[in-house]
Structure formats: structure tokens, C-alpha cells
């Protein structure tokens, strides 16, 4: 069996927006399997990428096909996929995928420079899932430590977002995480599940903390 002919046909099918999505998805799967053959597939890669872009940018295409194509392109750090996801988030074009999915895809590339977008999202979007994905992006940015600390402490914030902030902070500033964790554990009014999350994170990292209640501030007039 010579796969080259099958690959050429599959590339045409994947790029053909008039075809049934099931046929295009099958073509994508055949081609993606071909990439594991390395050198043998190399001569088809440029056309495959172009067909993937056609499938990913087709706003009218089947959701599953578009997401699969975007998923592969983002893993390859494709510049066009990045641009279109950002344009969708900024409302410049019709969104290719829901905002939470777009942010999740963009978060995979820590060289993608999407910190500003993540911050923008946290300022204006109230959806928990979207905010959580934005926090994941901030997890690659040490300059976002103070914002993550604020989110971690904020009792009015969604719990998932607080937990994601804790995980992000722990990854690049364990000391700041420990300080915030101690504050949460000492706080008699914070939620039990948040306390359990930070306590678990401390235990997994082998960090022991002193949770002796702080002495009340002394009043010099007394």
C-alpha cells in the first residue's frame, strides 16, 4: 500500500468546505496518523497544515472538526491559529470556539504573549469557566504574582478561580503561595473546601506551616 496517494486525497477532502464533516474528520484522522511516519509524511506536511487551517478557520464548519483542527494547530504553535483565536476573543471575527476553549488553547504556549488578553478577560468577564482559563494563562507569568494572590484571597471570587490561582502561584512563587495559604487557613470565615485545597497543596509539597493563631494587636491606650 502506498500511503502517498491516500494522503493527497485526504488533504483535498479536509480542505473541501462543501464535503460532509464526517468525511473531512476521517481525512484529518488519516493525515494525523501519517504525521507519526515522520520523514515519509514530511513532503505532505505543508499542504496538510494549509488544509488544517482551512478546516479550523471555517466558521460554518462542524464544531468537532474545527476544534480538532485547532487543537492540532495550537500544539504546533501555529501563528494563524493563535491570531484567529485572539481576534475571536476580542470580537473582531466570529469566535471559532467558545472563549473558555480559546483561552485554554492559548494557555498551552507560554511564549504566546497572551497575558494582556487574560488580564483583560479577568476585568470584564464574569463567567467562572472563562475566568479559570484566563488564570491558567497567568500561571506562566511571574509578573502576575500579585494579581494571583489577590484572586486567591478574594472570597467573592469563584472557588474554581481561587483554586486555579493557587495552583498558578504555587508553580512560580511558592513563597507567595505559602503566605497566602497561611492567611486562608488562619481565616475563620473562609470556605472549608478552599482551606482543604491549599492545605493539600502544602502537604503535597512537603511544606509545614505554623498555624498558631496570631495574637490580637495590642492597644497602647489600655
Amino acid at each position: 500500500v502506498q500511503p502517498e496517494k491516500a494522503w493527497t486525497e485526504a488533504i483535498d477532502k479536509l480542505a473541501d468546505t462543501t464535503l460532509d464533516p464526517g468525511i473531512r474528520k476521517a481525512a484529518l484522522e488519516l493525515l494525523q496518523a501519517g504525521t507519526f511516519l515522520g520523514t515519509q509524511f514530511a513532503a505532505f506536511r505543508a499542504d496538510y497544515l494549509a488544509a488544517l487551517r482551512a478546516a479550523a478557520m471555517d466558521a460554518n464548519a462542524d464544531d468537532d472538526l474545527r476544534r480538532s483542527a485547532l487543537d492540532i494547530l495550537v500544539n504546533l504553535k501555529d501563528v494563524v491559529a493563535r491570531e484567529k483565536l485572539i481576534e475571536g476573543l476580542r470580537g473582531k471575527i466570529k469566535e471559532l470556539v467558545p472563549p473558555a476553549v480559546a483561552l485554554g488553547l492559548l494557555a498551552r504556549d507560554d511564549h504566546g504573549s497572551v497575558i494582556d488578553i487574560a488580564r483583560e478577560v479577568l476585568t470584564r468577564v464574569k463567567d467562572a469557566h472563562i475566568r479559570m482559563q484566563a488564570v491558567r494563562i497567568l500561571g506562566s507569568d511571574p509578573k502576575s504574582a500579585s494579581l494571583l494572590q489577590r484572586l486567591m484571597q478574594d472570597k467573592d471570587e469563584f472557588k474554581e478561580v481561587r483554586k486555579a490561582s493557587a495552583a498558578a502561584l504555587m508553580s512560580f512563587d511558592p513563597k507567595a503561595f505559602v503566605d497566602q495559604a497561611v492567611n486562608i487557613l488562619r481565616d475563620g470565615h473562609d470556605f472549608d473546601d478552599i482551606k482543604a485545597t491549599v492545605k493539600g497543596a502544602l502537604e503535597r509539597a512537603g511544606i509545614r506551616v505554623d498555624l498558631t493563631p496570631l495574637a490580637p494587636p495590642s492597644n497602647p491606650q489600655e
Partner: protein
Amino acid sequence: MIKEHVQPPVDPLASALSALASVHNRDVDRRQLLALLQEDSPLYRGRASTEVEQIRAHVMVSLAKAGLADDLLPYILEELETGTNAHAVAAAARAARSVASLPDETIGLLTTALHRIWNLDEFVELDAYPASAGTGPTTVVGELIETLAMSGPDGRAAVRTLWPRLSVYKHVSATARRLLEASFLHEDSAVSCCACSKAAKVAEPQPIAQSIAALHDIELENQDGMRASFGKTFRGRTSLIAFFYTRCMNPDKCSRTVSKLARVHNLLDHKLPQSSAMVAGITYDPEYDSAARLRSYGIDRGMSFDERCQLLRSTGSFADVRDALGLGVGYGSSTVNRHRIELLVVDPSGKILDSNLRRLWDEHEVADRLVAIETADTTRAA
């Protein structure tokens, strides 16, 4: 009410693209345009790595078309040797065709690039930025083959050995295919875009500082969390200093550099056991590269840490280090978006004796150089 006239902020990309569009005009300072290829150019600040590479590729091709290809040689050779981005390597391959005299090693570098990049082939647009649909009329493999095909009989001979694998590539230009096929039939012509020569000059357009003395008081932290000033760490002994960061995606740059530092340290132990030379790597990304990260990164690459072999981070702003030395590094919104290879040999007074910029280096040569400096110092002292 007096209305204050506020100048709109200048968009570095818009102004660069406009300057490139008029690069053929006599009144444009074309030398100034070469600065657009420096990693720390404002043009690239805050951008994604992939965006940076695409813009640089357009800049490189525009400057080559305008007759500045010879000045681009250091960038061309750098990309051919270690580049992993399709746009950047394609631009280097195309720009090489306009260079008057290429170094002898170029055909070898083009072949190495072909091996490195052929599993990463994609369409590239080099003549315009941004590319309208993100595709382009050519691919990186097509550009590399075309340059080899036009590099005289030696270039075509290099392709001939690879032709069983390359012939199935559809996106090889008709010119290149014709030249190659004629060559394979032993009817090779003298067609050549450029000449290879041992004498070809490669001057680094962005030289490094002459001394590290200005950094004397800057505080550094090593992989064990121990802190000391730059002066205390390096003064009074010969030093080898390389720059890197742990999140670097190019295996031929930072990861390889730190592995080589480890080997230099081992070679020094073997060649000059009494050596006091310092072998150090300093991270471009100190906020992310904590002491613990430096430690595990170094151990994974064979570093046996001691007081003569360390990975370091600045505890304050890295901008002071970058600016004082003139380092070739640029930053996106959270980390480095592009950097060159940078290796310095520094004498006990802080004077930079040698610098290896952009290109790979040989650990045996570097170890021998350090031994020679230390031996000469000892002889002088005696």
C-alpha cells in the same frame, strides 16, 4: 479652552513596515533598518515568539532585496545553523541567494538546516507582513532546496544525495528543479547565485560590551539560593559566562549551551585540575528561573555544581544586566521571545577577552582557551 495637541503613539510595527516599503528610496537610512533585526528592537516587545520570527523573516527578505544581504550574513548563518522556525529559516535561505560571498561552510549549514526542518515544512509568506491568509507561495524546504540548487555544483551535489527523499516535495521551484535535474544528468551548468569563499567576512552587527565591570554591584543568586554580587562571583579569576533560560524551546540554544558548560567544566578539571576558572550560566528569565529550577535544569544537563560551576539568576531587574552588556535578547509579555547564543570569556579584571555570538561553539576549543589564559596568567605571576 485650549486643546492640548497630543501626538498619537508611534506603532513600531507600522513605522517599520512603512520604512521597509520605502527601503529602495535614496533618502531612507538603510543602515538604520538593519537595527530592526536586533532582538531587543521595540518592534518585537511584548510579541509572541512565532510573531517575532515572522516579522523578522519579512525584515530580512526586504533588506536583502534592497541590496543589504551582505550585512545580513551573521543572521543568515545563525538561522541556518540553529533556527527552528519555518519563516526565519526560509528567509535566511532566500537572503543567502543575494549575498555576494558566502563562507565555505554555508552549503553544510544549508544541508543541516534541511535535515532539521524538513519535518517542519510549511507554507511561508516572506514578501508581505502580515500574510493575508497565513499561507504563502513557497515553503521552507522549497527555499532551502532552491538556494542549494543555485549555490553552484557543490550545492547541487549536496541535494543529489538527498534527492530520493526530496523529489516528492511538490513545492520546489521550476528553476531549482531544472538546475538539479540537469546536474543529475551530468550536464551541470555554472549557474550560481553567489560564491562561497573562505575569506567571506562575518561581522556581528550587535557587538557585546567590552567589560563586565559595570555590573560589579548587581546581586546574583545561584542554584542553591546562595547570593553574592557580580563582582564577588567573577572578579579575580578567569570566567566563562553563557546566557540561557530554562523555558527556551530551541534545543540547539539554551539546553545545548548548558550541556556544553557542563562539559567545559569537566574538561577543565581534567586538563588543569588546579584551575580556578568560573564556568557560569546566567538566566535571561530570573523571575521564572528560581534557584530550584536552575538546579534541576543544570543537573539534567550534566552540571556538577561547585564554587567554580554555577547557574545564576539576578535577584533584581535583569534589564540592568542586559543593557550594560548589550545582550541580544527580547521579551514577550511573560518570557523571552527571541535571543541569540551568547558566550563570553572574561579575564580576572572583568575585561571581555572573547565573545561567541549567534553561532554554536566547541567546548574543547573553549576549554583550551581558558587553560591558555590561566596558564599565561600563572606564568606572568611567577
